[in-house]
């Protein structure tokens, strides 16, 4: 009987704790440093997020920083993304991702004085819409090696999104000031976010981890084999009315290498902080019009970032990060703030 009492006592005392620790031991609440490099078999992960990019700097061809506020072309990009991943087997994962972005680049105001007439122009290049659909497959080693994980991945951006710029919506209005009359010509271009051609991705990830830390190296090489038919718009202003005609050209996105090195520290079971160094190099794209081919400038950028992830509940994780560009060439250098959630479920 005393043994039964003892069992009841122990069960009664520790049962309030089961609710807390039990939730931490299943695969949906794995610590960041304990997670394998692909999802578990039957695990469904839905990752919505929002990214704000504040672009008031860029790197020129010599790698010097240019103040875009001074140039009059500072901009903001809002990007909403949705990624869905599923673990087919314990070491095979499939994923799909789609973004919606919105960005407007305003140019400086230009004033023209001609006799008694004054005219000024403003220009907005707006780029918004869905991105191409990314689908991918990732495999990791089907056996465990102490303190090491490795995976390879392949994927493609399917050209499902609209990519041809829509007809511009320029306008010309008469502005009546208390003293003067001006003509204000507004140039408004409407670009889209798609690529118009398939882009292939090949990547690899290697991770070294200890009880509370992980170092993860990741690289992704994207390349394109085909051209897309695109167009740009020319316009003519006659008696306050714009007429437009489109000019076709061919374009082929270049190849790019993206990479990142991330240091994770699992401060508490439910709280992970990370710092990372990442970058991108782009080469080889071109535009071709009437047989004349013009290459895209080579670009590169290096960024440092930091962030955290919180295991909020069994099915919910939250993460935030900030990335600050440090070096680059021919590339915008935005401050990027990302906020995301991750919903995780087991389907088997």
């Amino acid at each position, binding site marked *: *009987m005393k043994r*039964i*009492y003892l069992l*009841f*006592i122990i069960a*009664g*005392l520790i*049962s*309030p704790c089961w609710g807390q620790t039990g939730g931490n031991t299943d695969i949906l609440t794995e610590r960041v440093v304990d997670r394998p490099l692909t999802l578990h078999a039957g695990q469904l992960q839905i990752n919505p997020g929002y990214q*704000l990019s*504040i672009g*008031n700097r860029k790197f020129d061809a010599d790698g010097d920083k240019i103040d875009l*506020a*001074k*140039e*009059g*072309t*500072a*901009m*903001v990009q809002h990007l909403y993304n949705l990624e869905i991943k599923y673990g087919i087997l314990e070491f095979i994962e499939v994923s799909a991702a789609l973004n919606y972005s919105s960005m*407007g680049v*305003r*140019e*400086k*105001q*230009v*004033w*023209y*004085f001609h006799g008694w007439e004054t005219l000024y122009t*403003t220009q*907005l290049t*707006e780029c918004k819409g869905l991105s191409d659909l990314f689908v991918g497959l990732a495999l990791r080693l089907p056996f465990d090696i102490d303190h090491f994980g490795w995976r390879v991945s392949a994927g493609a951006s399917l050209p499902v999104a609209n990519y041809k710029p829509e007809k511009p919506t320029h306008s010309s209005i008469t502005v009546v000031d208390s003293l003067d009359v001006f003509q*204000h010509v*507004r140039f*408004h271009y409407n670009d889209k976010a798609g690529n118009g051609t398939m882009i292939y991705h090949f990547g690899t990830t290697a991770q070294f981890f200890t009880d509370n830390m992980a170092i993860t190296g990741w690289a992704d090489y994207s390349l394109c084999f085909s051209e897309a038919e695109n167009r740009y718009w020319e316009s003519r202003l006659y008696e306050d009315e714009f007429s437009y005609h489109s000019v076709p050209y061919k374009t082929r996105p270049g190849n790019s290498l993206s990479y990142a090195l991330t240091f994770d520290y699992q401060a508490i079971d439910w709280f992970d902080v990370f710092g990372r160094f990442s970058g991108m190099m782009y080469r080889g794209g071109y535009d071709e019009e009437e047989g004349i081919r013009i290459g895209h400038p080579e670009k590169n950028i290096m960024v440092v970032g930091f962030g955290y992830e*919180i295991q*909020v*509940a069994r099915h*919910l994780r*939250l993460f935030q990060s900030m990335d600050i560009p440090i070096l680059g060439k021919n590339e915008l250098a935005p401050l990027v*703030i990302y906020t995301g959630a991750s919903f995780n479920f087991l389907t088997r």
Partner: protein
Amino acid sequence: MKTVNKYNISGTIKNISGSLVLLLLPSLVNGQTEQQVLPSELKEQTVITEPATLRKGFFRASFFGSYTFIDQAFDENGEKGYILSSNVWAKSWYYQMALEYGITDRLQVIVEPEFINKQFFYTDEYRLGAYTETVYAKQSAVGFGDLAVGIDYQILTETGTRPSLVAKTTFTLPTGQKNPTGIKSWTDFKLPTGAGEFVITLDLNLRKIIYPYSFTLYAGYAYFLEGEKIFSDYFEPGDEDSFKQTFRFKNGNRIDVGGSFNFHLNDWIALQNQVFFFHWQPNKIYAEPVYTGDNAWCLNYQPVLNFQIRRFRLFEIVSVPVLGKNYGADPFYILGLLYTF
């Protein structure tokens, strides 16, 4: 034998009572700890479970910074679009502190000083024949803004069926610099950090907690008193007298209504979903001729993520203008930290 029987019966009773006592022990322990709430634990309550005003003797200090920029706006037809009339770009940081003290369990006072650091940029290019000139202007405002002091009174405390009702009265005092300073030309000067007017605001705030949820409804009215200051909009190139000319003005009063649905994501993280509607009456500047602005309104959605770590609370707010008229359409980002002493 009798003794044996007696022993057996009493032994059985002892066994049963003993097992009951032992089985009930953990629950008794739980019952006691739930009722023994320490003052320190009261200071660790979340935005959902804390009372509508601070308890007597509690002191809370919060510090938050907010960031925004100028990119898009709602026009007079309510259409959202990029600001096309100019390429003006702004970076605005507001740092605000709120010091709250509970005089009684139902009455608290608040003091809110703020520090402003905002910068405006614009670039124009002038072309006259072969002559081209680029003019880059940067104007900034750095310094303490206007001070707000307030009194909050909990008219109704919350019960099982009744929500709490709090009346908030706030007086904004024009302690910040109201005029442009360091004026060198009609484009080269420092912007003011204050508004140069007194404002009286009254808010009524209803809240009901149904753990782990809470619901709020609120309505407020802000009355802006008349003031007098220098407006840079009236600067004339080369006319130094226009740099000193002051005008009386009265900003339009503001009505605001809103509500929120809040819930715990876990024991220490709470998500608030706030929706606010603001309406401003037209501003007036008593110049020649009198300038009368436009009505403006805005509907904002504002998610707030609160992390309660003991007496610390870290919160993040994104204020997103959803609909509006004659109002900026760019989001506002606020990051704050508070501590209850």
